[in-house]
C-alpha cells in the first residue's frame, strides 16, 4: 500500500480559524468531545427526571412544574412527559454521546497522530462533519422543547406510532418530525467522519507504520468507521421514508385499516416490520460503533499500565474485524417477538451467539494481558479495568437474550434495559473516561488530578453496578420496559422498593460526575504540567510535545520502527520502546 501525504496547510491565525471553524483534527476532536460533554449533561438530567417518576410516580414536584408546566399539568409528572424524557434520553445518549466522543472525539484527535499523519485526509470535510453534527444537535434540542412536546416513541421510533402524527399521542407531531430531521442530519455528519477515518488509515500512514503496527485504538476506529459508513445510510433511507409517511401521505410503514382514537386512516399497504428491519439493520452496527472504540482503548491502556504487550495482538485485530463483520447479520435479535418468521429468528439467534465468540476472545486476551504484569493504578487504568468487568457483566446476559425461547419472557423487560445499559451505556462510558484520563495530558499539556479521579472512579463504579444490577431482577420478575410506573399491575407492586433504590443510586452516581467535570476544568488551568510522555507509553502520540504542534510532528517526518506494544522487551534498557525509537536492538524470539 502506498504511503501518501494529506494536503499540507499553513497554521491558521485568528480566533475563528483556530478554534471555531478549524480544519485541525485536534481542534475538531476537542469540539466533538465538548459536544459530547454538553449532550451527556442533558442526557443525565433527562435520566434524573425519569428516575424521579419511577421511584415516586404520584409525587408532585412544584419546582419542576414551574420549568415544565405541560409536563406536570395536574400535579405529578405526566406519563407522556416520562416517555418524552425516555425517548430523548436514549436518543441523545446513543447518538450525541456514544457515537461522537469515542469515535469522532478521541478518534479525530488521535487517529492521525497514531498512524503518523499530519492531519486527516480531508481537513475541510472534517470541519464540515463537526458543524453538521452540531446543527443536528441543535435540531434535536429543538425537538426536546418542541411545541406539543418531545416525541414519545422511544429512540427506536417504531411505526406506526412514530408515523401517524399527533393522533397517536402527544409529542408525535412537530417533536417527532424535528427528531427525524435531526437524525437525518446526524447521518450526513457521521458519513463525512467515516470517509475521513478510512482514507487516513488507508492512505496516510507514516513510513514504517504498517497496518499490523497500528495500535488497537486505531484498528478499532478504523473498523468502527467501516460500520458507520455502511450503516448510517440505511438509517437515512428509513428516516426519509418515515418523514414521507408523516408529511407526504405515503404508506411505507402504515398498513391498511388503522383506526386510532376512532379516526380511520386512509393509508394502505405499508409494513411496520419494514421500519424495524431498516432501523435495526442500522441499529445493531450502531451499538458496536458505540463499544468498539472503547474496546480498543481498553486494550491500549491495559497494555500500557501492565507494562506488557497486548496479549495476542493479531487475534485482537481479527476479533475486532469479526465483531464488526458479524454485527451486520444479527439485527433480527431485536425482532424475535415482532411477528417476523420464527425460522428467520433461528438464523439470527445463531449469528448472535456467534458474535459472542470474538468478544469472549478479547476478554480472555485482556485478562492474559494483565497476567504477570506490573500494574500501575492510574485513573485511566482503573476505568479500563472497570470496562473489563462491565463488559463481562453486560456480555453474559447476551447469552440469554440471544435465544428466542428465552426472549419470549425477557423481551421488552428491564432485563434488556440492564443488558444494554451495562454493555453500552456504562462500559462504553468507562472507555470514554479511561481515554479522557489517559489522553488529557496530551491534549492539554497538564495532568488531571489523580486523587479526585480515584474518588470519581469509585463513586462511578459502585454507582453503576448499584443502578443497573437490580434491573436484571426487575426483568426476571417480568417488569416491562418503558412503563411510566409499575403501580397498575399487582404482580409488579412488590418491586417498587427496587425502583427507589435504583433512583437513589442514580442520583448519587450522577452527582458524583460533578467531580469529574470539576477535575476536568480545574486541571485545564491548574493541573500538574505534563511532559510528552507521562505514562511511558509507546504509541506515536507520546513522541510529540503535549499538546502537539499544529502539524503534529514538527519539521521531521515520523518514521516507525516498532510495533505498538513493546513493553518489557527482554534485554531492552527500559521497560518500553517507543514505536518511533530507531535505536532499539533487534530482538529474536
Amino acid at each position, binding site marked *: 500500500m502506498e504511503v501518501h501525504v494529506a494536503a499540507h496547510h499553513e497554521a491558521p491565525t485568528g480566533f475563528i480559524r483556530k478554534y471555531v471553524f478549524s480544519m485541525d483534527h485536534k481542534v475538531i476532536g476537542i469540539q466533538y468531545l465538548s459536544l459530547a460533554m454538553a449532550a451527556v449533561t442533558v442526557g443525565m438530567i433527562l435520566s434524573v427526571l425519569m428516575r424521579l417518576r419511577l421511584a415516586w410516580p404520584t409525587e408532585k414536584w412544584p419546582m419542576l412544574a414551574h420549568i415544565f408546566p405541560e409536563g406536570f399539568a395536574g400535579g405529578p409528572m405526566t406519563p407522556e412527559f416520562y*416517555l418524552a424524557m425516555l425517548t430523548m434520553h436514549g436518543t441523545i445518549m446513543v447518538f450525541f454521546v456514544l457515537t461522537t466522543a469515542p469515535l469522532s472525539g478521541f478518534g479525530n484527535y488521535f487517529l492521525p497522530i497514531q498512524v503518523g499523519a499530519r492531519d486527516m485526509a480531508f481537513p475541510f470535510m472534517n470541519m464540515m462533519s463537526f458543524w453538521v453534527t452540531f446543527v443536528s444537535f441543535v435540531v434535536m434540542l429543538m425537538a426536546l422543547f418542541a411545541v406539543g412536546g418531545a416525541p414519545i416513541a422511544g429512540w427506536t421510533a417504531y411505526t406506526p406510532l412514530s408515523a401517524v402524527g399527533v393522533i397517536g399521542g402527544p409529542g408525535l407531531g412537530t417533536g417527532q418530525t424535528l427528531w427525524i430531521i435531526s437524525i437525518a442530519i446526524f447521518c450526513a455528519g457521521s458519513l463525512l467522519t467515516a470517509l475521513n477515518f478510512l482514507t487516513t488509515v488507508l492512505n496516510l500512514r507514516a513510513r514504517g507504520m504498517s497496518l499490523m503496527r497500528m495500535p488497537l485504538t486505531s484498528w478499532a476506529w478504523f473498523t468502527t468507521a467501516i460500520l458507520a459508513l455502511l450503516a448510517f445510510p440505511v438509517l437515512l433511507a428509513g428516516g426519509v421514508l418515515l418523514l414521507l409517511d408523516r408529511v407526504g401521505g405515503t404508506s411505507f410503514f402504515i398498513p391498511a385499516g388503522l383506526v386510532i382514537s376512532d379516526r380511520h386512516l386512509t393509508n394502505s399497504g405499508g409494513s411496520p416490520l419494514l421500519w424495524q428491519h431498516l432501523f435495526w439493520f442500522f441499529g445493531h452496527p450502531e451499538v458496536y460503533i458505540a463499544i468498539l472504540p472503547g474496546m480498543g482503548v481498553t486494550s491500549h491502556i491495559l497494555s500500557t499500565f501492565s507494562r506488557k504487550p497486548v496479549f495476542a495482538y493479531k487475534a485482537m485485530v481479527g476479533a475486532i474485524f469479526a465483531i464488526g463483520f458479524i454485527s451486520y447479520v444479527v439485527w433480527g435479535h431485536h425482532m424475535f417477538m415482532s411477528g417476523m418468521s420464527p425460522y428467520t429468528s433461528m438464523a439470527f439467534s445463531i449469528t448472535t451467539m456467534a458474535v459472542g465468540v470474538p468478544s469472549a476472545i478479547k476478554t480472555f486476551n485482556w485478562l492474559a494481558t494483565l497476567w504477570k504484569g506490573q500494574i500501575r493504578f492510574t485513573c485511566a487504568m482503573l476505568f479500563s479495568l472497570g470496562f473489563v468487568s462491565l463488559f463481562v457483566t453486560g456480555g453474559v446476559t447476551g*447469552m440469554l437474550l440471544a435465544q428466542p425461547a428465552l426472549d419470549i419472557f425477557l423481551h421488552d423487560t428491564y432485563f434488556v434495559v440492564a443488558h444494554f445499559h451495562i454493555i453500552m451505556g456504562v462500559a462504553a462510558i468507562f472507555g470514554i473516561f479511561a481515554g479522557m484520563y489517559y489522553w488529557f495530558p496530551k491534549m492539554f499539556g497538564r495532568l488531571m488530578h489523580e486523587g479526585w479521579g480515584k474518588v470519581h472512579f469509585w463513586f462511578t463504579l459502585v454507582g453503576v453496578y448499584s443502578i443497573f444490577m437490580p434491573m436484571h431482577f426487575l426483568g426476571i420478575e417480568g417488569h416491562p420496559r418503558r412503563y411510566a410506573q409499575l403501580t397498575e399491575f399487582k404482580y409488579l407492586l412488590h418491586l417498587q422498593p427496587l425502583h427507589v433504590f435504583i433512583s437513589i443510586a442514580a442520583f448519587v452516581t450522577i452527582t458524583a460526575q460533578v467531580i469529574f467535570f470539576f477535575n476536568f476544568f480545574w486541571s485545564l488551568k491548574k493541573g500538574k504540567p505534563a511532559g510528552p510522555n507521562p505514562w511511558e507509553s509507546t504509541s506515536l502520540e507520546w513522541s510529540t510535545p503535549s499538546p502537539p504542534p499544529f502539524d503534529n510532528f514538527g519539521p521531521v517526518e515520523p518514521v516507525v520502527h516498532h510495533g505498538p506494544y513493546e513493553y518489557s522487551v527482554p534485554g531492552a534498557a527500559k521497560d518500553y520502546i517507543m514505536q518511533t525509537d530507531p535505536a532499539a536492538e533487534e530482538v529474536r524470539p
Partner: protein
Amino acid sequence: MALLLGLFFAAVGTVTVGIFLAKVWWLPELISVHGAAIDRQMVMTLIIAGTVFFLAQITLGYFIWKFRGQGGKASNWHENPKLEFTWTAITLVIFLSLGISGNRIWAQYFQTPVPKDAVMVEITAQQFAWNIRYPGADGVMGRTNPALIDDAAGNYIGLDPKDPAGKDDVITQNLMAIPVNRPIRLMLRSKDVTHSFFVPQLRVKQDAVPGLSIGVSFTATKTGEYEIACAELCGMQHYKMRGRFLVMTQADFEQWLKTRAAM
C-alpha cells in the same frame, strides 16, 4: 487500591450469583405447559452465564491484586497459540450448544400443530385496551372490517353486523378467560399501533402488529387470576394497558361464556 478493587470485583461476582441462587427475585410462578422447557433453558443458561460471569470477575479481581506493580519487571508473554485455540474452542462449543438447545425449544414452541379442539380466541389490541373475542356456540368468528370500527358506538373491532356467524361472538374488553388444561389458540391483531400481549406466568409474549394476524398457542396448567401486560411501547398509557387473565375450570369457563354472551 489493588486489594480493594480486586475484592470489589470478587464481591460483584459473588453477591450477584448469590442473589440469583437465593432467588430473592425470580421468575413468576409457571402456569403453562410449554413454559417448563423455557424455564429449564433459562436456568441452564443462567447457570452457564453465571459461571462465566463469576469466574471472570473473580479472575479479574485476583489478577488485579496479584499483579499489582511492586517494582519488578513485567513478563513479555504475549501469545500462546495452544491456549488461545483451547479457550476459543471451548467458548465456541458452549455458545453453539446454547444456541442449538435454545433453538430446539423455540422450534417446539412454534411448530407444535394446533389441536382440533383448541379454544379459539382473538385479541384486537388498541390504544389502550385489549378487545378479546370468542367465536361463540357456532365456533366461527364473524367477519370484521376496520371500516366498521366505531369506538363511540361500542363496535371496537369492526364486527360486521351482516355476518350471521358474528352474532354469537362473545366480545369483552380487558377481560380474558380460558379453561385450564386445554390448548388455546390465540390470534393477535392490532387496530392502531404495535402492542404486545404478555402474560408473564404463561411465558407467552407476542407483538400485536397492525396489518398482521399472528397466532400463539399455549395450555394453562393452573387456575387463578393473572394479568395481561402490554410489552411494546404504544403511547402514553402503555403502562396501564392491563387486562385481567382468568384461568378457570372447563365448567366455570362455559358458564362464564354464557353469562357474557347474554350481556
